[in-house]
């Protein structure tokens, strides 16, 4: 697959030329971000318990209030035009994506404790949630009825993602165990090993781990989980960002992707571009955006960011990357090689 393939009228995607094109301020640090499936909006959760929506590319801002805790989980139903948001008080809300003043339609206590991630099935008929109560749950879209509880993890579940063909759901927990569930039958069919993303810090006597970001490639050949590894001091964040890339068919680790220049911190968000390269963003000792070619474990390109990145979202058209930052700004980056 050529990285520089592009339709004749559009500028070529060249990740080595990635640059910031927008920087939209909010009044509180941001913790997550997602483009909606149409690409018209980008949503970000913030530390003031709100969700902020900006239009893309204009940056017109609307604040969605209703949560009473941080939102770090966002998902969508393209079919119903809905945004799903999960907060750290275990509440799951649904909102219309568009409109001047979206108001919540669902208000479900989905989990005891944090909801750490949401994922929408490819056909938008199901929503998966996971959280601190060790559970993964499936919900009917659009009416919010509980469908299934997937019980098997023995610690906080950090992330969930549907396989692109909709048959399987992957969930990753604090200790780096990735369970693969058969969605229809609700059974765990196999496990993947991402334990390199977990450490029990014997000095501070606490666990650090979990897939902070998780994503399949569009064809479902690979699963990426990202987080922090090599932790020598969990309470100061001394460790290195890592993306673990699994070969889906075999379930084995294909690669462990690291920044070429060692960086101290956590990788918070990951995406696999349709053109094949892998993107991740993170922060700790400064924020960075990394790009890898799939056959090289060391990054192909690194962009230093203005501050710590807390997530990463790839625009449905594959050209823009949204990164929510600690400094309260939502930043957009353009992967195309030249301005239009």
């Amino acid at each position, binding site marked *: 697959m050529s990285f520089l393939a592009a339709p004749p009228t559009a500028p070529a995607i060249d990740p080595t030329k990635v640059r910031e094109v927008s920087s939209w301020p909010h009044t509180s640090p941001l913790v997550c971000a997602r483009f909606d499936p149409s690409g018209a909006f980008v949503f970000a959760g913030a530390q003031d318990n709100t969700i902020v929506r900006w239009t893309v590319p204009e940056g017109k801002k609307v604040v969605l209030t209703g949560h009473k805790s941080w939102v770090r989980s966002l998902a969508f139903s393209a079919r119903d035009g809905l945004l799903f948001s999960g907060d750290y008080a275990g509440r799951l809300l649904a909102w219309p994506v568009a409109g001047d003043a979206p108001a919540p339609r669902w208000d479900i206590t989905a989990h005891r404790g944090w909801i750490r991630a949401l994922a929408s099935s490819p056909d938008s008929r199901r929503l998966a949630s996971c959280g601190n109560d060790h559970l993964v749950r499936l919900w009917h879209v659009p009416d919010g009825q509980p469908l299934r509880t997937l019980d098997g993890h023995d610690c906080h579940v950090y992330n969930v993602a549907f396989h692109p063909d909709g048959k399987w759901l992957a969930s990753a927990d604090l200790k780096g165990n990735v369970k693969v569930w058969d969605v229809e039958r609700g059974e765990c069919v196999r496990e993947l090993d991402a334990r390199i993303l977990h450490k029990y810090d014997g000095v501070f006597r606490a666990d650090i781990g979990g897939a902070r970001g998780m994503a399949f490639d569009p064809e479902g050949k690979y699963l990426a989980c990202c987080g922090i590894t090599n932790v020598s001091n969990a*309470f100061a964040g001394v460790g290195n960002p890592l993306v673990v890339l699994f070969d889906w068919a075999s379930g084995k680790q294909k690669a462990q992707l690291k920044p070429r220049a060692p960086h101290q911190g956590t990788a918070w968000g990951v995406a696999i571009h349709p053109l094949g390269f892998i993107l991740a963003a993170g922060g700790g000792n400064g924020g960075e955006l990394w790009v890898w070619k799939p056959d090289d474990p060391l990054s192909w390109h690194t962009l230093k960011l203005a501050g710590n990145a807390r997530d990463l979202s790839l625009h449905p058209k594959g050209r823009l990357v949204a990164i929510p930052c600690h400094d309260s700004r939502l930043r957009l980056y353009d992967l195309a090689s030249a301005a239009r």
Partner: protein
Amino acid sequence: MHCNYACGSSDHLLSRRSFLTAAGGALGLGLLTQPSLARVLNGQQKRVLVIDLHGGVSQLETWDPKPGTNTGGPFQAIPTSVPGIHISELLPHTARQMHRMALVRSLNTAEDDHGKGAIIMNTGRRQEPGLTYPHLGSACARLLGDESNPLPGYINITPHGTGGVSVADAAFLGPRFAPVSLDDGKAPQNIDRPADLTAAAEQTRQLLRLRASERFLRRRRTAQTEAYTQTYDQAVGLMQKKHLFNTANEPEKLRDRYGRHDFGRHCLLARRLLEGGATFVKVTHTNYDTHHENFDFHLEQLGEFDLPFATLLEDLALRGLLDTTLVIVQSEFGRTPNINHLYGRDHWSRAWSVALAGCGIKGGAVVGKTNANGTAVVDREVNAGHLFHTYFKALGLDPKKNFYVEQRPIPLADPKASAITEILA
């Protein structure tokens, strides 16, 4: 009786002899009565339990939550067994014990360093050049303890492998009031008297050892040589109480409720030791120094703290011990209201909290307030000096009384402060 290294006094010799023969009376030194036992039976013995949440626990994630503010973080506040008092959702079981507890939310100790903060909280004063104040444990061992009590006056249950506190804790009170550390709460190895050693032979050899030790200490007494000699007396005392370390005799359900992990077991051991006559017991839960990912780590650590602590309070109450046991839950300092770029909170001593319960403490009382987002004390600011006045008064002691170091009077608590009477029963 304080320790004067120049003295070579026979006071020490006598007291150790009496300490030994309390168990049995050979060599014509006579059986002594056990006043500590009498005190226990009369309900007069007072005890102290300190839970040290090591590293700087966040007051915003425990005793003084500020949900919905720019400093509050993602956790909610929950009601407690006392109407009007809310604490962090991370302490659901402790919340149900609030009627036994008092909270001080207006603590300002102005010291963000771990070591110095610990000294302030453990001695009630800032460190001074030329004078080291004794640790609360040593002070309590001295003031509340009894010489004939076989258990060491100050017992420190430490998490595995963290090492004990140092000989220096006792300061001018002398090494006899230094802490005995129990690594991971285990009964010390070799606690059984050898089968081929009779009680009489044990007495004999201890007296011979004492004699040899005194000879040496007459001319070369230092803090270190004293401390070393003391460990044998402590060993004898511990041997007599070895049954206390065996938690296996406790009902399974209770052991489950305390929790089978380290902190749970240590809390259960603390209860047994207090019940068995220990004067001062400290249990440490580590670690809370969450500069990075404060919320995840406080979730984990407080998740481990909450039920054992609540169980311990309940257990002490049910056994009729809580009225005579002062319970203190403390840290070196609190954590910043500001959430840093690593989702962490940093050291903060300007406006933080301490929780108390038990002997002399008014249950359900809250004193002091911080502002809306916890960045300053707005009502009834206190420091560690006030806390120490409060502790001593709660224990029925007069904090204005003095220790004497070579005739120099050293007040028990900082004379510039006073007791927080709002939380005294």
